């Protein structure tokens, strides 16, 4: 594990994720945000050692709360719990592939929406039609964000040299080559 590249790569990917998530607005046709920060945190959960992944979760959650006007520790706690769930499911999600990342982020986006509403004591919103519609929108938003986020993070890892692609014939998962 090389701290000299882990830290700047992590900072850069989270900054880009925060920028994209902040710039792309929620519209009437799509009233939720694309959760690029959550996707970046999930990518770190699948490919990084435990302390790096937890730090990524805290930073991604902190940025989401700070830029979204949410109470402190709302999203960092969620992402840390999500990391624990991902590690428990590691035997299913063997590598940080695009498909796994996309599906995982879609599920995480819906769970994050529910968590945020609960944290804000907005329980009454669960039972309104508008809220159920918004919850439904979180799944395609998560799919988009997961696909783009995992693709971008994988690209940055390869460009920075943190991960070296391995031929499939070796039977070694590419995410395991540089732990």
């Amino acid at each position: 594990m090389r701290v000299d590249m882990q830290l700047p790569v992590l900072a850069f990917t989270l900054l880009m994720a925060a920028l994209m998530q902040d710039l792309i607005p929620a519209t009437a046709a799509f009233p939720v945000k694309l959760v690029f920060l959550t996707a970046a945190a999930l990518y770190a959960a699948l490919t990084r050692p435990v302390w790096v992944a937890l730090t990524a979760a805290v930073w991604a959650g902190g940025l989401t709360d700070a830029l979204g006007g949410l109470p402190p520790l709302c999203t960092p706690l969620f992402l840390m719990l999500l990391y624990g769930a991902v590690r428990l499911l590691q035997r299913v999600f063997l590598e940080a592939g695009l498909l796994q990342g996309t599906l995982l982020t879609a599920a995480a986006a819906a769970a994050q929406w529910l968590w945020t509403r609960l944290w804000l004591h907005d329980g009454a919103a669960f039972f309104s039609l508008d809220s159920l519609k918004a919850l439904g929108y979180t799944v395609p938003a998560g799919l988009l964000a997961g696909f783009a986020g995992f693709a971008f993070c994988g690209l940055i890892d390869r460009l920075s040299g943190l991960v070296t692609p391995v031929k499939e014939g070796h039977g070694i998962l590419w995410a395991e080559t540089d732990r």
Partner: protein
Amino acid sequence: MKQAKRWVWLLAASLGVLVFWHAGVGVFSREALYPYENAKVWLERTVWVRLQAVLSRARSAARASMLERDVARLRMALAETEALEAEVARLRALLDFSPPIPCRWQAAPVLSRGGTAAVWQSVRLAKGSLHGVRKGDPVVVPDGVVGRVVDVSPHTCETMLITDPNSRVACELETPGEGVGVVRGILYGGGARPAADPVLTLLYVVEPLRLRYLARDFEPPPRTRVVTSGLGPTYPKGLTVGYLLESSLESDGLSREAAVLPAVDMAALDEVFILTRQGGRHAR
């Protein structure tokens, strides 16, 4: 092992900063994104507008965009002048009234909407404490009131829109009628949702705002203009908030409640004006 220890310390420090210095994290995050968001605004205003002019084979597109901004600024100045004229006339009748506190309108482009969570109805503007913006400053466009500043960093500020459920604005009805006097109420933000009609799903239809605690005995006619009353600490008097749709008695029967359509299309905000005051409350 040594590197793992460093990450443990980094994680602990990050959690400590989030817990004990959350406000600073917000300021730092907004300032970190500001150069990129400002660059996007610059690209839209210079490169994109000129590209559109080239593609449309007309230089008038860029010129029209510049003229629209000039017209918006001039309309703001005109609205301020008209309000000043009315105030002068009133002061002449009252005589010993104190002079207004100096303040000025600052144009500010919109950087982003809704932040990263889209939980609150808010926009981020490219003006901050370095430009004299402070918490509580009202934000308007020529069409009407947009909201107020709720958080400020050196180069940016967060503005809560009047459509946010947490927004409250002290309002009154304009010229309600003879013998009625002034009819005042509190405007509650209603949030925003897509239209129920599927044909209009692409349009940004705002759920009407609620003007509560109106006098129960007066039924205001539809399309009555709702303006700020100037009684709260934030908005000066006379700014257009919206137009009344319909009214009904509240559930307890003690007052009347009305639905108000905001005068400003919040989804179409591109550039707004912040009223920055120089010491004390606003002039009007």
